[in-house]
């Protein structure tokens, strides 16, 4: 069962490309991107360890249930709403950047709303499923796509055209600059896969032990360094700043000479279709469950066979918001929004980590408002 936890760590590491993390880091490559990496690695690892340790003390409870253990209902609901906004907006930003990338490289003649629409419908359907289905879909998509993503990454890493002097220059010059806040926020996103435990802890059995946690810093550091340094190696220290979709251009610089299609770009975009779907599914599903937890009659269920109608309503609302967002925004604005989201995300994450530590302490002292058993989620399957 522990593998489901690491799937989240792993895919968020790969997803950072779609939330424009490399773009933010590369635009600060000469002033403090590199020096913020050690901080981000330390911080991300620490947060992962704290959240997993605390949630281990609350087996089978999601974050909304833990709020109810310690807080009055109104405060719990406020905190839930913050979670809803953070989670669902992440899905919306990714959906927009994804459909834009596809519009630019895949199908420039089709309307961008068409790409957005098809993807939104797929995400809508995936996100409305029960938590258990979402978890299984997550496993399937990740197992299909990650070997090929890793293959592309290693192809890039061992390419003759990778200029190690450029990488050395940026690393050497950057580490001597004071760290930049924006880069620290962006880099720590790579480690934020552990946040998905806030909902999916509901599915964890009581005796779950978080083993192999030493993998978290290794996986995160690997993806962080690769997604920052490989584009610099391919496009040089200067020209790399001229690209917005820097990873799409980087994969386009690779060639599969004897492949069915020689442009690696198309394979890459296909894989990121999977990963974006995965990301939007997870974020919208989490957002949806957090929102449902605000209602009084709500009973947390994890394995419903027939999903309630309210799932459809909530996720449809996010589809509508996505289209409104796509109508009023553009590439430039989306960049700013993504940067703001990365900052907010980190702040919320930090507050949550401190709250969790407080919960841990309060549980030890036995200051709970309700009993854990009364809040534990039910299966719900027939």
């Amino acid at each position, binding site marked *: 069962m522990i593998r489901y936890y690491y799937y989240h760590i792993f895919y968020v590491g790969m997803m950072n490309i779609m939330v424009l993390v490399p773009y933010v880091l590369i635009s600060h490559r000469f002033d403090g991107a590199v020096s913020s990496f050690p901080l981000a690695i330390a911080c991300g690892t620490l947060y992962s360890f704290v959240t997993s340790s605390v949630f281990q003390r609350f087996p089978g409870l999601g974050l909304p249930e833990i709020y109810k253990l310690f807080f009055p209902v109104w405060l719990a609901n406020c905190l839930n709403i913050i979670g809803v906004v953070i989670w669902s907006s992440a899905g919306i930003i990714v959906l927009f950047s994804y459909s834009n990338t596809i519009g630019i490289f895949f*199908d420039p003649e089709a*309307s961008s709303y*068409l790409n957005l629409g098809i993807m939104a419908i797929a995400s809508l359907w995936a996100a409305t499923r029960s938590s258990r289905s979402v978890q299984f879909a997550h496993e399937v998509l990740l197992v299909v796509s990650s070997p090929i993503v890793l293959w592309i990454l290693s192809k890039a890493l061992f390419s003759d055209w990778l200029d190690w002097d*450029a990488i050395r*220059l940026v690393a050497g010059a950057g580490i001597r600059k004071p760290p930049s806040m924006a880069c620290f926020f962006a880099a720590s996103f790579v480690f934020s896969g552990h946040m998905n435990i806030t909902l999916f802890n509901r599915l964890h059995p009581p005796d779950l032990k978080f083993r192999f946690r030493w993998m978290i810093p290794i996986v995160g550091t690997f993806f962080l360094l690769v997604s920052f340094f490989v584009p610099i190696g391919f*496009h*040089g220290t200067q*020209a790399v700043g001229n690209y917005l979709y820097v990873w799409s251009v980087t994969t386009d610089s690779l*060639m599969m000479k004897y492949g069915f299609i020689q442009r690696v770009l198309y394979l890459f975009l296909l894989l990121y279709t999977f990963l974006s779907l995965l990301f939007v599914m997870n974020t919208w599903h989490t957002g949806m469950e957090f929102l449902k937890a605000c209602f009084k009659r709500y009973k947390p269920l994890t394995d419903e066979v027939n999903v309630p109608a309210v799932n459809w309503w909530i996720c449809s609302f996010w589809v509508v918001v996505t289209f409104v967002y796509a109508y009023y925004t553009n590439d430039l604005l989306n960049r700013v929004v993504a940067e703001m989201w990365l900052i907010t995300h980190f702040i919320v994450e930090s507050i949550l980590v401190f709250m969790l530590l407080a919960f841990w302490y309060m549980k030890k002292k036995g200051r709970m408002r309700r009993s854990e058993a009364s809040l534990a989620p039910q299966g719900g399957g027939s």
Partner: protein
Amino acid sequence: MTGKRMLSCIVCLTLLLVLGGCQLKDIDKRYFVVSAGFDYSNDPAKPYRVTLRLALPSSKVEEGGAMSVVQTVDAASIAEAVRHLKATVDKELEFGHCREFVLGKELVAKDGIYNSMQWLSRRRDIQSVSNMMIGDPDALSVVSLKPKSERYPGNSLFLSFGNEGTESAHTVTTYLFDLYRRLYETGLDPALPVASVFLDAYKIDRAALLDKNKARLYLDPEETLLFNMTAFGVDNTIIVLPDKPLNIVLAATRNTSSIDLKGGSDPVAVVNIRIEGFLEQSPPHLLEEDWSGLERKMAKHFAEEAERMLYKIRDAGVDPYGFGLHYLADRHNAKGSWEKWKSLYREIRFDVRAKVSIQGSGLIR
């Protein structure tokens, strides 16, 4: 969900898929551009002459069966020229399969590559792994040649590059993304192959070295070979040791090169190169007499030739090897180091450390 509702849902969703075709042009309504050339037209109002070679799709794939048409137009910029060209053809132009871009020699001399690169790097359908080259005397003659050996239009030219078709050590391969990187990088300058028409084929055996915009130096074929070996480490080359009555020729099968800077404030630029191969031409029993002596002699001769070429490149004021970038990386891009390097590079000494290892005499009898 009942079966009927499910079915209607599925039908609706399937209809969505058809929508994808609404804004898509069929393959038979498209012209595939297979190579493009940019020239200088000497008309100040319309300085750019754009030549496109368009493939005519055919059901047969055979040598000499490739059909294509060549269209050319003059305009104030490349983008305008391409738009204008659309008015002369009956199908939509598609650049997705175009992997050869030829820049005319005169264009590179007068206008430079910067403006052309702006258009090339912005087009999303142009592959970053396109081959870039200079056309001598102009791009039009290179693009409009239709070699008889082509299986499908345009494949003759791109097979010349890289190691897809022929593996010629005289052919420098420069991809679009590499040229774009070198255009902006401090301490790393562009290098481009020079293609010309020779009988019914392309001759790509020279290289042009550019500063950030214009060509500074054209290397002759022998220098191009040395440049290709030392800068890009291409395999399958030869090195020659002059001898009477017949030159001694080593066919190199493996070749690795790297650059380095040795010494503190007054560095020496070092090019390390390891060449492995077997003798392709030599007097009988030469190798058996003095194996390591011959290796040393070949390495010394190679190093001398390469150093002569390196000084020539240095005196032209360009740095296609990236010594400057290496220097900056060593100095962590400290303030003032770029200015210091620029004055250092003018006077820098080169040291080619060649190591030749002969695997065998090449004799099979």
